[in-house]
């Protein structure tokens, strides 16, 4: 394909560097732009008219805007994993090697088969899909399949994102959003007052609309004035300046999200560091100086490429040195757009006509164009554009003074560009995010920011102030005030007001929908929301159908649903609705503005917290040993816990889970095993009221627990349901150590603090988390004492002297240790605690000491099997937040006669807790000894009953026990405790039905003899 020349590029004068040639591709075609271009300006320079196809009707669409408001020029940028869908060409800075392609149009944007749908567009009124595709019912999924084919704009990449993103938590006294004249003045005043100031702007450079202005400020061009101003701002050390940074959301308590694009404007090879950075800004005061959007004029076929916003035409000419056409018709209802005629003329192009809807405007602007000999058609409107892929002519007709009817004959004026201006709409988006309700202002014919609940103010065009001198003044005042209110300066501006050349404007006309010779439902489509193909007619149809709220109109027609969120046409749509209902704009109101102001990258919102940093991984002090031993790990909360330690099989390969667990369990029962139990939560509790306090928290009593002793306890929530369990040790007078479950540690501490601090502040008790301080190695098995004896000679290990549920201080492997004789396996066990810096040392010393006994490290899986053989519960596995101690057959742990009604006690007396058919904790012995019932299997009495079956409970824990030589399970079953010996069934998804007998939950050593081996 041949390279298109930059046929629309003007020579010099603009802010682009015409020598800095940049190569890029569009739809695979190589093109050139210049440094300073956006993709949009470069495409226009290259004479590209059609940049996409509309999604419903497949109509050809061209560039209409120059910034965040652009609805049509939606591009896929880049390729492969670093491709980005849906960028607006008007916001993409050109860089060497940029690849771009339109997102819609098949087989191509220039020839789109979907556009045939245009002929059928009358069959697609708003909401047509609700009215059809219903019969026959089963075909809907097929219809939907085809509807979905048409869905979407660009494509999501399919590969992993090669870029990284980060975040900064920023704190500012004054945050200024928008660096146009108002924002620049505000930042300068606030910085001068000494406040910590940030100023951000979404564009590549500061200056806002001044970058495209031909006004003179302080005897300089606006553009030169901006450069000077920016240089001055750079001298403030307390001012942070962020270009390419979009404030996308204004949240509560002056929290603002800002997305900085750090390398999107660089070619792939030049980009380093994070691609985008999210600034999470907490500001004392915010100055909004976000400017205004020019409103479109809605007339028939106003979507043909070559219909553009007047200010955008000026911007392309003045800022980018591009004239997107040659013969322009300017269509306006206000004075500001006359500047575009002057700019176009200045670019050496032809202004065919100025069509002004106002019957008799006058003033400086009119005089200026007339002086240049331009034809001005007053009281007229462009009622229709004609052309296919580019405007060929404008149909112009006189209209009445209210702007509601065509009152004369239609003229056809040949042109290739129609520049339009329907007035201005303040960019009140951010202000509205705070919940401030927009206020309609007849004087500016627009919505102004409402009264805000946040510490902010709006200045400049976003507040409806359009004169440059007033923007300056308002900005300066806002900056000085914001600084003052956050504690800096007097609140009065210090800098003199820059003198500007400006003139008075004649009042605009409110013209939201341009009349046609036919009414809107019949006229050629008059587009309000181009991205979603919403027309004036479709809004009127929706009203006729009974949708009267603006919110219903939005949802029925999809007005403002697009990636531009209706920045261009929303106000027109509201006005069309207001007119159809015969009510005022104020009564009609707006839809709700929500973040994001412009679309914001998921990856940037996620930041660095992905991959291994998604959530902290917690390790114990022995972790490296486990790794070296090839342990498999289980995620328990944030912890990585050894799950099992597979060994190489003699026969080759590595042990399976079952093989490893069988071996580990047998080792514990027959000799000795070692478990890393460091993850258990531990809370040190001190103070005169400690025993009373924990007696209130647990179901049993600790008032008589002597130093040196431990006790197992269960904690309930006030609803009577089991919430945590563990052992509590009395360390001394008024001093206890509480163990919690691994997952429960933080919750239990907060729970204790809650009661102490808010309910019983007079109870003298302090809590300190010592979970991380201690490393715990548990040695368990008949040889446990022998192993311990090898590394400990200052504790009397005699089984009488150091009894079950006792603890002792001593020295283990040369380290001061605290040893508990408690057991979760049913075997003789010692839990040895040392400060965690010695954790690995202790572990290795025990492994060495146990060598003679073939000491076997075991993981959580074996630990679960061993405790299940003993019928010990695991809170969260065997209980689910709906189980009481009685349900778990643990009435023995509930002290009935404590003076204080412990937490949860009263709930145990509620009628439902006393119901006899509650689920109760029992054992299950599969009739076939090799059937390991799946955990989560449901239990029924009669497996032949029809569905829905009457479910009696479920399997909570289930294993094969190498010790018992058969599979076994724990379950909760309705009335289970009184059903011992009955056979129940587990119907499984694969069709199997496994039978099991209800037995005691204690499968092993019910007398507890193993605890006390010599």
């Amino acid at each position: 394909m041949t390279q298109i020349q930059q046929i629309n590029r003007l020579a010099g004068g603009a802010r682009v560097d015409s020598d800095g040639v940049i190569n890029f591709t569009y739809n695979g075609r190589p093109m050139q732009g210049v440094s300073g271009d956006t993709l949009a300006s470069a495409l226009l320079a290259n004479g590209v008219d059609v940049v996409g196809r509309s999604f419903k009707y497949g109509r050809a669409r061209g560039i209409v805007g120059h910034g965040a408001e652009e609805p049509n020029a939606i591009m896929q940028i880049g390729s492969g994993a670093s491709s980005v869908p849906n960028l607006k060409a008007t916001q993409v800075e050109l860089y060497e090697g940029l690849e771009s392609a339109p997102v819609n149009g098949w087989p191509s944007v220039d020839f789109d088969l979907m556009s045939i749908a245009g002929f059928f567009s009358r069959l697609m009124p708003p909401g047509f899909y609700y009215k059809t595709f219903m019969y026959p019912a089963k075909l809907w999924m097929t219809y939907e399949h085809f509807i979905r084919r048409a869905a979407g704009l660009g494509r999501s990449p399919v590969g992993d994102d090669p870029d990284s993103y980060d975040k900064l938590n920023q704190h500012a006294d004054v945050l200024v959003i928008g660096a146009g004249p108002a924002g620049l003045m505000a930042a300068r005043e606030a910085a001068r007052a000494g406040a910590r100031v940030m100023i951000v702007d979404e564009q590549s450079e500061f200056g806002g609309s001044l970058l495209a202005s031909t006004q003179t400020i302080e005897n300089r061009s606006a553009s030169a004035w901006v450069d000077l101003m920016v240089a001055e701002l750079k001298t403030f050390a307390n001012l942070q300046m962020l270009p390419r940074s979009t404030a996308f959301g204004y949240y509560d308590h002056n929290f603002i999200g800002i997305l900085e694009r750090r390398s999107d404007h660089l070619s792939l090879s030049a980009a380093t560091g994070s691609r985008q950075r999210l600034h999470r800004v907490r500001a004392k005061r915010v100055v909004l100086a976000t400017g205004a959007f020019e409103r479109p004029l809605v007339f028939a076929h106003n979507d043909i490429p070559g219909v553009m916003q007047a200010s955008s035409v000026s911007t392309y000419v003045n800022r980018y040195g591009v004239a997107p056409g040659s013969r322009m018709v300017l269509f306006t209802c206000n004075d500001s757009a006359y500047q575009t005629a002057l700019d176009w003329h200045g670019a050496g192009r032809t202004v065919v006509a100025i069509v002004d809807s106002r019957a008799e405007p006058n003033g400086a602007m009119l005089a200026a164009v007339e002086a240049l000999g331009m034809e001005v058609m007053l009281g007229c409107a462009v009622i229709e554009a004609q052309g296919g892929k580019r405007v060929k002519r404008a149909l112009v007709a006189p209209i009445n003074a209210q702007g509601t009817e065509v009152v004369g004959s239609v003229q056809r004026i040949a042109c290739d560009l129609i520049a339009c201006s329907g007035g201005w709409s303040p960019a009140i988006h951010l202000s509205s995010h705070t919940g401030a309700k927009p206020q309609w202002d007849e004087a500016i014919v627009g919505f102004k920011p409402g009264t805000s609940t946040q510490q902010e103010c709006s200045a400049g065009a976003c507040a409806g102030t359009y004169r440059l001198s007033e923007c300056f003044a308002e900005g300066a005042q806002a900056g000085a005030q914001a600084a003052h209110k956050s504690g800096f300066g007097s609140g009065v501006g210090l800098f003199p007001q820059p003198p500007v050349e400006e003139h008075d404007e004649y009042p605009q006309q409110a013209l939201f929908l341009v009349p046609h010779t036919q009414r809107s439902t019949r006229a050629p489509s008059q587009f309000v929301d181009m991205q979603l193909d919403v027309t004036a007619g479709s809004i009127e149809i929706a009203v006729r159908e009974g949708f009267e709220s603006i919110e219903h109109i939005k949802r029925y027609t999809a007005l403002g649903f697009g990636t531009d969120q209706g920045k261009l046409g929303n106000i027109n749509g509201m006005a069309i609705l207001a007119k159809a209902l015969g009510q005022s704009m104020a009564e009609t109101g707006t839809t709700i503005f929500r973040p994001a102001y412009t679309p914001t990258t998921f990856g940037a919102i996620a930041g660095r917290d992905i991959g291994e940093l998604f959530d902290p991984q917690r390790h114990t002090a022995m972790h490296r040993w486990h790794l070296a031993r090839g342990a498999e790990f289980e995620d328990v909360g944030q912890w990585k816990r050894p799950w099992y330690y597979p060994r190489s099989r003699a026969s080759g390969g590595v042990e399976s889970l079952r093989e490893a667990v069988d071996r580990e369990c047998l080792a514990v029962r027959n000799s000795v095993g070692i478990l890393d139990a460091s993850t258990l939560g531990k809370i040190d509790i001190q103070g005169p009221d400690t025993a009373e306090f924990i007696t209130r928290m647990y179901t049993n009593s600790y008032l008589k627990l002597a130093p040196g002793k431990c006790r197992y306890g269960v904690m309930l929530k006030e609803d009577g349901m089991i919430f945590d369990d563990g052992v509590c040790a009395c360390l001394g007078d008024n001093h206890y150590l509480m163990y919690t479950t691994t997952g429960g540690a933080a919750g239990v501490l907060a729970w204790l603090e809650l009661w102490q601090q808010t309910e019983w502040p007079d109870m003298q008790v302090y809590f300190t988390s010592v979970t991380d301080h201690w490393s715990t190695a548990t040695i368990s098995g008949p040889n446990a004492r022998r192993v311990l004896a090898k590394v400990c000679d200052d504790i009397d290990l005699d089984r009488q002297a150091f009894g079950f549920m006792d603890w002792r201080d001593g020295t283990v492997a040369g380290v001061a240790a605290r040893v508990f004789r408690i057991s979760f396996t049913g075997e003789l066990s010692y839990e040895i605690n040392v400060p965690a810096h010695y954790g690995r040392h202790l572990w290795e010393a025990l492994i060495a000491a146990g060598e003679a006994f073939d000491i076997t490290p075991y993981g959580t899986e074996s630990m679960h099997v061993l405790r299940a053989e003993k019928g010990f519960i695991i809170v969260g596995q065997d209980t689910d937040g709906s189980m009481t101690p009685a349900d778990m057959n643990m009435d023995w742990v509930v002290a009935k006669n404590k003076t204080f009604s412990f937490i949860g006690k009263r709930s145990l007396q509620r009628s439902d807790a006393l119901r006899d058919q509650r689920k109760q904790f029992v054992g299950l012995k599969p009739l076939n000894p090799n059937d390991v019932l799946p955990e989560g299997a449901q239990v029924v009495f009669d497996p032949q009953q029809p569905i829905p079956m009457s479910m009696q409970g479920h399997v909570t824990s289930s294993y094969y026990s190498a010790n018992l030589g058969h599979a076994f399970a724990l379950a909760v079953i309705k009335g289970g405790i009184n059903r011992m010996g009955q056979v129940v069934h587990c119907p499984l998804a694969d069709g199997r039905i496994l039978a099991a007998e209800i037995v005691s939950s204690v499968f092993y050593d019910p007398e507890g003899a193993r605890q006390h081996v010599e």
Partner: protein
Amino acid sequence: MSNNISMETPLMHAYGNFSHHEYSAGGEIAFGELLFDLVVKEMPLCSHLNIRGDAGDDAFCAGILQVLGIALPTQPGHYHTSRTHSLYWLGPDDWLLVSRADSIDLQAQLRAALSGHLSIVDVAGGQTIINLRGSAVALNTLLKKSSLYDFGGWGTAVEGGGRCVQTTFAKASAVVANRPDGSYELVVRRTFADYIARWLLDAGSEFGCRIEGELGA
């Protein structure tokens, strides 16, 4: 306790992965050498005690002063320090004492000097101190990346003390304090230390960041 017992610092696991010559990319190259603007260093292990008591009790305050030679910080967000001890405000009745003195002796002295309702808990095994040093820009940026807290108003610490805060650090938490030399110290929990080290290396990579350890394994 015998001297040949090996202690393992909380960051040891991280060293295992990163080794202490390891760094994260992005450091500038000058004279053929990578420059690092940020250094993450785990400080030697020492005594850590959590002290709870009544700041309104003069005897309690006097006892602390008598044993440690520094006043109990009662102003939120401050710490006091001497050559041997640093005492951080954690909450209205909650302090962290970090000390080079022997923990057992220290506890005994404190217990002897203090009376009434209080608690002294050895937490040394559960924590480690990470020193972060580097250029001011790099440090400020790193802190802004890592924590929600506004360190902007702090200034630098002086000899007798400075500012401290217990706050979020990435998805974990830390006590962050400023130092007279412009560096920062993080008191972090042992089991999160590895995560925090990884975070720091990643977040600091734009400046060049390396781990420096004394106890590499």
